[in-house]
C-alpha cells in the first residue's frame, strides 16, 4: 500500500460533539467488554458483596429482625457494587492511569477529558448494573425477599438520578485523585466500611441521628437507597428519612453540583498537575 493510498483511506478528522461522543464510546467500550472478558472479576464482583449480604442477613436473623430488614440488606449489598465501582474504577482511575503511564497520553490526545471520564462512568455503570442485578436476584432467591413496588416511574427516576449523581461524584473525585500518589490506594480502601456505615447500606439511614444522616446525604447513595427502600418494600415508608419527592429533588441538585464540579475541578487539577509535573510521576 502506497503512502498516498494510506492518506486517502484515512478517515476524515472528527471534531466537536462527534469527537466527544466517539471518545465516550471508546472509553466505555473496555469498561463493558473488557470486564466481561475477565470472568473471574465477575465472580469476585458478585460473590464478595453477596458474602457481605449473607453475613448481615444472618446477623439480622440471629437477632430476630423483621423480614423487611433482609430486603434492606439485599438492596444495600447490590448498591455496594456501584460504590466499589465508583471508588476503584472512577475516583482512583486516573491514579492507576498515571501509574501505568497512560495518563499523559490521555492529556496529549486531542479530545475532552470530560468525555473520557463520562465514558468511564457510563461503561462502568452498565457493567456494574449487571452485577447488581445478579446480587439482587441471588439474594432475593436465597432469602425469599418480598417486593411491592409502590410507584415504578418514581423508582426509575430515583435510580437514574442516584446513579448520575454518584458517577458525577466519581468524576469529580477522579480529578482530586490526580494529585495523589500512593495514598490514593489507601484512601479508596478507607472509603468502604465508613461509607457503608454513614450511608446506611445495611440499615435504614433514619436510624442514625438526623444531622449525621443529613451529612451523609452528600453521598448520593444515601438518599437513593432510602427512596428506593420506601418505594419497593411494603413497610418502607415507615423507615424513610425524607419523603421520596424531597429526596428526588436533592438527588437532582447533587447531579448538577457534581457534574459541574467535575468539569471545573478537572480543568483546575489538569493545569495544576501539568504545572507541577505530576502527570508522569510514580511514587511507589
Amino acid at each position, binding site marked *: 500500500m502506497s503512502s498516498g493510498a494510506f492518506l486517502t483511506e484515512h478517515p476524515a478528522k472528527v471534531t466537536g460533539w462527534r469527537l466527544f461522543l466517539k471518545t465516550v464510546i471508546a472509553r466505555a467500550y473496555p469498561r463493558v467488554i473488557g470486564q466481561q472478558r475477565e470472568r473471574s472479576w465477575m465472580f469476585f464482583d458478585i460473590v*464478595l458483596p453477596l458474602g457481605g449480604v449473607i453475613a448481615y442477613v444472618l446477623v439480622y436473623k440471629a437477632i430476630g429482625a423483621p423480614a423487611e430488614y433482609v430486603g434492606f440488606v439485599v438492596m444495600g449489598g447490590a448498591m455496594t457494587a456501584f460504590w466499589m465501582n465508583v471508588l476503584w474504577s472512577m475516583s482512583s482511575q486516573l491514579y492507576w492511569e498515571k501509574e501505568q503511564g497512560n495518563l499523559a497520553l490521555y492529556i496529549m490526545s486531542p479530545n475532552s477529558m470530560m468525555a473520557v471520564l463520562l465514558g468511564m462512568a457510563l461503561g462502568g455503570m452498565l457493567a456494574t448494573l449487571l452485577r447488581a442485578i445478579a446480587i439482587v436476584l441471588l439474594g432475593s432467591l436465597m432469602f425469599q425477599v418480598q417486593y411491592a413496588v409502590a410507584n415504578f416511574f418514581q423508582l426509575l427516576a430515583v435510580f437514574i438520578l442516584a446513579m448520575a449523581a454518584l458517577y458525577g461524584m466519581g468524576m469529580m473525585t477522579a480529578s482530586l485523585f490526580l494529585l495523589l500518589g500512593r495514598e490514593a490506594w489507601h484512601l479508596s480502601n478507607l472509603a468502604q*466500611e465508613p461509607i457503608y456505615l454513614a450511608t446506611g447500606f445495611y440499615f435504614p439511614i433514619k436510624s442514625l441521628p438526623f444531622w449525621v444522616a443529613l451529612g451523609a446525604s452528600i453521598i448520593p447513595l444515601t438518599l437513593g437507597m432510602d427512596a428506593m427502600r420506601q418505594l419497593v418494600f411494603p413497610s418502607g415508608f415507615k423507615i424513610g428519612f425524607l419523603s421520596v419527592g424531597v429526596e428526588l429533588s436533592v438527588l437532582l441538585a447533587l447531579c448538577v453540583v457534581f457534574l459541574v464540579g467535575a468539569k471545573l475541578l478537572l480543568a483546575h487539577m489538569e493545569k495544576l498537575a501539568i504545572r507541577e509535573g505530576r502527570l508522569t510521576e510514580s511514587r511507589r
Partner: protein
Amino acid sequence: MAVTTPHSSLVTRHSSPVTLFTESWRSFRLATWLGWQIESNWADPFLFAIYSIIKPLSGAAILVVMYGIIAKGNFTNPLFPYIYLGNAFYIYAGAMMTGVSWAVIDDREHYKTLKYMYIAPIRIPIYLLGRGVARFITGSFSVIITIMGGVLFLHLPLDVAAANWPLFFLSLFIGVVMLAMMGLLLGSISLLLVHHVGFIGDAVAGALYIFSGAIFPLDVLPAWLRPIGFIMPITYWLELVRRSLIGNVAQAFPTLAGFSNGQLLGILLVLSLLFGVAALIAFRLCDRRARERGLIDRTSNY
C-alpha cells in the same frame, strides 16, 4: 523469566540448624521492617493512626447499629458480646490472611521486586510471613480500640479481673500463627495466579466470616452448611477467645457448649497444625510450578 538460580532454601537445606535459624530470623526481621514501611510510610503517623482505626471501628459500628435498631438499644443480651467480640477478633483474620498473601502480588506486580527477593539469600515463606506482621500490628491496634469502645460505651461485659488471661494469650498466639499459615496458603496459590487475585485474601476472609461463627452462632446457618464451620480452626479460636474474656456469657451458646476449654484448645491446635502443614506443602508445590512456568516476575498489568 524462569528463575533458575539456586534457591536460598536449597542452599540452606545443607546448612547447620544455627545458620538456618539465623537466616530465617534475618528474613523475618527484614520482611517485618519492610512490611511496616510499606504499610505506614505513605502518611504521617497521626493520619496513619486514624486510617488504621476508622475502618475497623466503622465495621463494628455497622453491627452495633444493626443490633441497636432491632434490640432497641438493649445491649445486655448475651448475643451482643458474642457478635461484638467475634467481629473485633475477626479483624486479625482479614489482616493476617490478606497481609501475607497480598505481599506476593504487591512485590511481583506493583514493586516488581519478587524476582530480586527470590535471588536474595532469604527464605521466601519466612519473608512472606514477615510481611504479614505489619498488618498484625495495625490489626492489634484496631482490635484493642474496638474492644475498649465496646467496654466504655456499649456495656461489653468484659471484667479484666475475671478474664482467663493465660487461656486468652495462648489462644491468641495459636490463632495468629494459624491465620498467618492460612495467609501463606493463599500466598502460595497467588504465585500461580494473576494480579486480580489481590482479592483472594479478602474473598476467603469474607467467606470464613460467614462460616466461622464470627458474628452469629453457627446454628443460624442451614444445617448442611454448618460442617464447613466445624472444620475451620477459626471457629474454635473465636470461641476460645470469647470464653477467655467473657466466660459464661460465651458458653451460653449451644454450638460448642459441649466442649471444654481444653478440648477446644486441642481441636484448635490439631487443625492449626493441619493447615500449617498444608500451607508449607502448598508453598513448595506452587513455588516449583511458578519457577517452571516463569511466573515469578510476571506482570499482569491490570
